[in-house]
């Protein structure tokens, strides 16, 4: 198993394997996104308090979950790069940063849109919103550092250090709603307890979360493949691959 993982670390092997996975991932993610959105918009009953505006939860909550999850993935890849010097891990860090930034932005904007009818305000400086905004700035900082250290040999390790320094913010975001009583509602899902929502509301939510993850991995795979082609452009196999296109 370890040998398989090790072989996966070679950009060439990963590129070849991922060409097979990518169409499946794309198909699955589109299928689940479309069915999830259709379920959320058409078949979920309106909330007794919020009416139909609860439906944006199905866009907002998965985005927020992925924003944090994406940073954990980026930090994990950064740790792998610093410890084992796996080039692919550094490419993963570079690929996740813009994806994470966009999805955090989506979470913030959809949250604001949801907040207006339910709380009466677009924005409030409570713990969860502020720390998610900080998460967005952390992603932007990652992008900024990489572009400033443009192509230098040490760019990868510097960005990896920054990713690990920023990971301290993650527990603060996750537990901020529990530590400080705030306007934002507590988590809908937890690994150990039953959800606080009826089944007809949390099942489409679960589907949307899975759909977002699938879509995230699809986009990540595309970016990674691009990054591989870009960085390995002087190698034989890339030249052959490009010539064959």
């Amino acid at each position, binding site marked *: 198993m370890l040998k398989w993982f090790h072989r996966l670390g070679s950009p060439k092997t990963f590129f070849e394997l991922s060409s097979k996975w990518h169409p499946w991932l794309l198909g699955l993610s589109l299928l689940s996104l479309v069915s999830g959105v259709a379920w959320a918009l058409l078949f979920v009953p309106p909330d007794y308090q919020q009416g139909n505006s609860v439906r944006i939860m199905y866009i907002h909550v998965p985005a927020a979950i992925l924003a944090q999850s994406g940073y954990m993935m980026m930090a994990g890849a950064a740790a792998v790069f610093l410890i084992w010097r796996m080039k692919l891990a550094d490419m993963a860090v570079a690929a996740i940063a813009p994806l994470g930034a966009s999805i955090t932005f989506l979470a913030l904007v959809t949250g604001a849109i949801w907040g207006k009818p339910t709380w009466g305000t677009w924005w409030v400086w409570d713990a969860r919103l*502020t720390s998610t905004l*900080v998460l967005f700035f952390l992603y*932007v900082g990652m992008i900024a550092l990489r572009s400033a250290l443009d192509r230098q*040999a*040490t760019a990868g390790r510097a960005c990896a250090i920054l990713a690990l320094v920023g990971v301290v913010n993650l527990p603060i975001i996750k537990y901020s709603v529990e530590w400080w009583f705030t306007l934002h509602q507590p988590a809908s899902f937890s690994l150990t307890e039953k959800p606080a929502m009826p089944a007809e509301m949390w099942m489409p939510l679960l589907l949307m979360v899975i759909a977002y993850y699938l879509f995230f991995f699809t986009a990540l795979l595309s970016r990674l493949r691009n990054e591989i082609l870009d960085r390995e452009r002087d190698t034989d196999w890339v030249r052959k691959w490009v010539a064959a296109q």
Partner: protein
Amino acid sequence: MNFYLRTLKRDLSIHLRGLSEVINPLVFFVVVISLFPLGLGPSPQQLSEVAPGVIWVAALLATLMSMDLMFRDDFSDGSLEQVVVSGQPLLVFVLAKVTAHWLMSGLPLVLLVPVVGLVMFVDGDSLQAMVVSLLLVSPTLSLLGAIGAALTVSLARGGLLVSILVLPLYVPVLVLATAMVQAAGSEAEIAGYVYWLLAALLASVTLAPLAVAASLRLAVDR
């Protein structure tokens, strides 16, 4: 004398000889705060309400301005490289640098707070809390800022980038400190905040030097 004290002494003498570089951020601090009465209007009530936040943000920005003091000169004249390859403990070097920076930039800020507090009509209790909180937090600011300074030391114009990298790390500390000042102003209990700020300081002292040392090694690694 051991390595820590030698580095500290060297840094302090260098800073004291080039005092204009040390004073600039402090002047910036005072000037920025003075802009607020001009922008918001001179009413003492309004100013004393916004004072804790304004003074804190100005302190943060002044600290960021002074980050260049830490590593840039050593990097450009090659002495940083010498320290890294010399085999001396880099963590000790980093701690000495941060101490020198705090003595030259954080501590003067704390001493200036009563002065600017007067200008912004801050009342006694809040002023006391402000001084205490800034005293507790300024080492943390120096430590976290050192991470940004070390990551960008090899860049020619790293100034604004340091702010983007470090301000998200400052946010939790800023929130806690201003909450503490407001609690003090309204006669509430501040012990909890003090403990949290101390915890942040201890976490920074233990963990930040690791990141700084790793970044310095990268910077001289060509």
